[in-house]
């Protein structure tokens, strides 16, 4: 009896073991399978909203572009074996075609008739009209709406929409592909009480649904299996929010994530040597500038500002801080922007010249000023320390005050901060867009209070000029004035650095630095 009992027990345990291992195998197989269509990405910030008309940071914009479609989008092309967006070429998305009136003020879009929102509602011209109304009424995207010069949006029939402009505007078609101009399921939005609901819910027709989103930990995107366009290769996208840059680097090099953003320049070289990791580093139009508040003494004096531009160790910033992951910035717009010119820019590292200019300005012994440092980016901190050390050599004392990122953004938006470093990416790679926001006297991001009537006039004239060459000449003139008056010191143009696991294919670089997950696949 005892023997039998033992045998039974052994047999049972064998069964159990095989049972277990069989299960384990299936589990392992299924993870391996889903691993092929799942990607985990590491982002530095957790985003602030899902509302297309209020989104303003890389993470929020990523959600919007995953969950929504736009009327038109940017073309992509292959340059030197890498996929890049060609923002000057606009291609169909929700609109299958469009016609422009002879005077360039009336655009008639024909919408595809096979698009359903994720809710199941069909996408019609009423949604386009309603979405443009939501954009016009928003607090953030309304500025772009004005910049696009839109006058009326009318539904001609169920699948035709006519948009009229106040006057011919070359930026109009350039702005339409932006996440801010997403087409929303207005029926669903109305059912849920309006735009506020959009902050934490999506109402799009896009390739992914946002399944969960916790800004402090992670978000999960799932493929929209009923997507009208090309089916995305990825089933699931996990986006983890990891503030600490070195942790993102570590996760990427250990293969825990397949994609990581905001890779610190100092870690690029070692990651390139890490097996299985591919670093995608490309010049971009993301600039970093040292803003001097033109409304606060002594920076209201042009000579003082020019003196500062001669006391910045530009080469050191590029080599020591950015380790080559940046290139010189020589005008207020990025060098890759159409119409760029460095005319009038005399800034170079020359402390004697800085001293002379300071003496000429009436500050032979220098002065003291306050500098506000937004935290979160190590290179800003390092730049500030290096600039501080150089300024000290010409008698200028720069008092640095650290501020958490959210506070910093609030503080500079008041226009009361004496000086700061900030970065800027023009999602529309056009000098009109860029200068209009940053350096015209009415610009919503002109926090350094630069005010020059000639620049304003040139910008206004250029924005309605239909001929591109003439337009770029006007923008060039504006840049020359700005370069001479130096409201900012130009620090550098960033490379956009994305870390990828080998086998992650399809990454396409856009000026906005946002990853379109519908383009990605995993081998």
């Amino acid at each position, binding site marked *: 009896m005892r023997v039998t009992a033992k045998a039974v027990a052994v047999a049972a345990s064998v069964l159990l073991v095989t049972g277990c291992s069989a299960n384990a195998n299936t589990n392992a197989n299924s993870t391996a399978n889903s691993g092929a269509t799942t990607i985990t990405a590491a982002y530095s910030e957790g985003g602030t909203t899902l509302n297309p008309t209020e989104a303003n940071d890389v993470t929020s914009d990523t959600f919007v572009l995953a969950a929504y479609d736009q009327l038109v989008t940017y073309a992509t092309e292959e340059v030197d074996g890498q996929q890049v967006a060609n923002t000057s070429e606009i291609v169909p998305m929700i609109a299958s075609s469009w016609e422009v009136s002879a005077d360039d003020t009336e655009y008639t879009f024909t919408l595809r008739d096979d698009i359903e929102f994720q809710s199941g509602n069909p996408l019609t011209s009423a949604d386009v009209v309603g979405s443009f109304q939501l954009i016009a009424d928003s607090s953030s995207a309304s500025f772009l709406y004005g910049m696009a010069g839109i006058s009326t949006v009318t539904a001609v029939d169920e699948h035709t929409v006519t948009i009229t402009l106040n006057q011919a505007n070359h930026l109009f078609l350039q702005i339409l592909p932006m996440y801010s101009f997403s087409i929303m399921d207005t029926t669903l939005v109305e059912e849920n009480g309006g735009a506020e609901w959009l902050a934490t819910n999506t109402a799009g027709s896009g390739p992914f649904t946002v399944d969960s989103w916790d800004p402090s930990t992670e978000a999960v995107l799932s493929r929209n299996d009923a997507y009208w366009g090309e089916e995305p290769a990825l089933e699931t996208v996990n986006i983890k929010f990891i503030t600490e840059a*070195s942790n993102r680097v570590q996760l990427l090099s250990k293969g825990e994530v397949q994609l990581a953003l905001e890779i610190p320049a100092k870690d690029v070289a070692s990651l390139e040597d890490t097996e299985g990791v591919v670093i995608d580093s490309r010049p971009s139009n993301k600039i970093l500038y040292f803003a001097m508040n033109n409304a606060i003494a002594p920076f209201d004096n042009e000579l003082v500002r020019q003196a500062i531009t001669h006391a910045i160790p530009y080469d050191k910033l590029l080599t*020591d801080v950015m380790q080559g992951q940046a290139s010189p910035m020589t005008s207020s717009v990025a060098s890759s922007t159409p119409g760029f010119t460095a005319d009038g820019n005399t800034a170079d590292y020359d402390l004697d010249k800085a001293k002379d200019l300071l003496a000429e300005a009436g500050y032979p012994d220098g002065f003291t000023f306050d500098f506000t440092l937004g935290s979160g980016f190590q290179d800003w*901190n390092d730049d500030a*320390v*290096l600039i501080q*050390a150089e300024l000290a050599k010409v008698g200028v004392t720069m008092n640095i*005050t650290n*501020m958490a990122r959210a506070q910093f953004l609030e503080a500079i938006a008041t226009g009361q901060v004496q000086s700061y470093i900030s970065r800027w990416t023009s999602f529309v790679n056009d000098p009109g867009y860029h200068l209009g926001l940053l350096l015209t006297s009415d610009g919503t991001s002109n926090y350094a209070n630069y005010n020059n009537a000639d620049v304003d006039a040139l910008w206004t004239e250029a924005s309605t000029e239909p001929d591109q060459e003439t337009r770029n000449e006007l923008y060039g003139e504006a840049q020359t004035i700005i370069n001479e008056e130096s409201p900012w010191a130009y620090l550098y143009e960033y490379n956009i650095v994305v870390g990828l696991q080998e086998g992650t294919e399809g990454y396409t670089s856009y000026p906005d630095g946002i990853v379109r997950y519908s383009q990605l696949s995993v081998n």
Partner: protein
Amino acid sequence: MPRTRSRTNAPAGTRSTTVGFGRLLLRNKLGMIGLAVIMFWTLGSIFIGVLSPYGASETAAGALLAPPSLDHLFGTDNFGRDLLTRVFAGGQLSLWTGLIAVGISMAIGVPLGGIAGYAGGALGSVIMRVMDVLLAFPSLVLAMAVAAALGPGTSSAMIAVGIVGIPEFARITYGQTISLKQREFVEAGRALGLTSATILTRHIVPNALAPIVVRATLGMGYAILTAAALSFIGLGAQPPTAEWGVMISDGRGYIISGEWWLTFFPGLAIATSILGFNLLGDALRDVLDPRLRTTA
């Protein structure tokens, strides 16, 4: 026996007892090690300006991110600044912060505790409940709140850490006062018609000093740590000031890439200086607290 001693001790700190304390302290090996460590950091940070060929904020004093070598014993940071100079210069700030913060805690906490203990009743309850409220906050969170409200900077860090330490001193003084005010020499003082203020300042506080001194010594280490934590998150010292917490914060991105010295030396400085104050504090308690005095 205890009664006689307390009577001879009444005008606290007679010559013979001071000598006794000193000898006992000298015999406490761990305490002496602690004192030596504190002296090392104190003297080092006082004389670093004279001894070091480099300036604390001097960039490009050597190669960038150079590992420890004979030229730079602690190596250099990402600006080529000499880390040894910066660590000792940071010691200056950290020790000052500790002293001033503990000074603030004592200057406010001791009178509050003394008044609460001596007066008792409603006033005492109110004071001590307020202290309880302060204690209810996690100390670092409270320090962060105070420092954020005052704006980032070294002086606000000192004040923040000082405020956080107040309730500890108030409670110790309160407890001491409660027990001391029952003693005969206090009663005698009252019988002689001394004012409450005189009794409190001349008779109670001097006799309550021993645990306060112990707490102050231990508090130094704690204050240094909290100030470094505030600086780590950007609420304390601002660039280019050398400060241990800031140095660790700036160097933490380099741990994985292999430049360990950026965080190791400031970390070692924090660890050893706190250890020093704790060892000395423990030794002082052993020596000053009669209940623990077994070797006398």
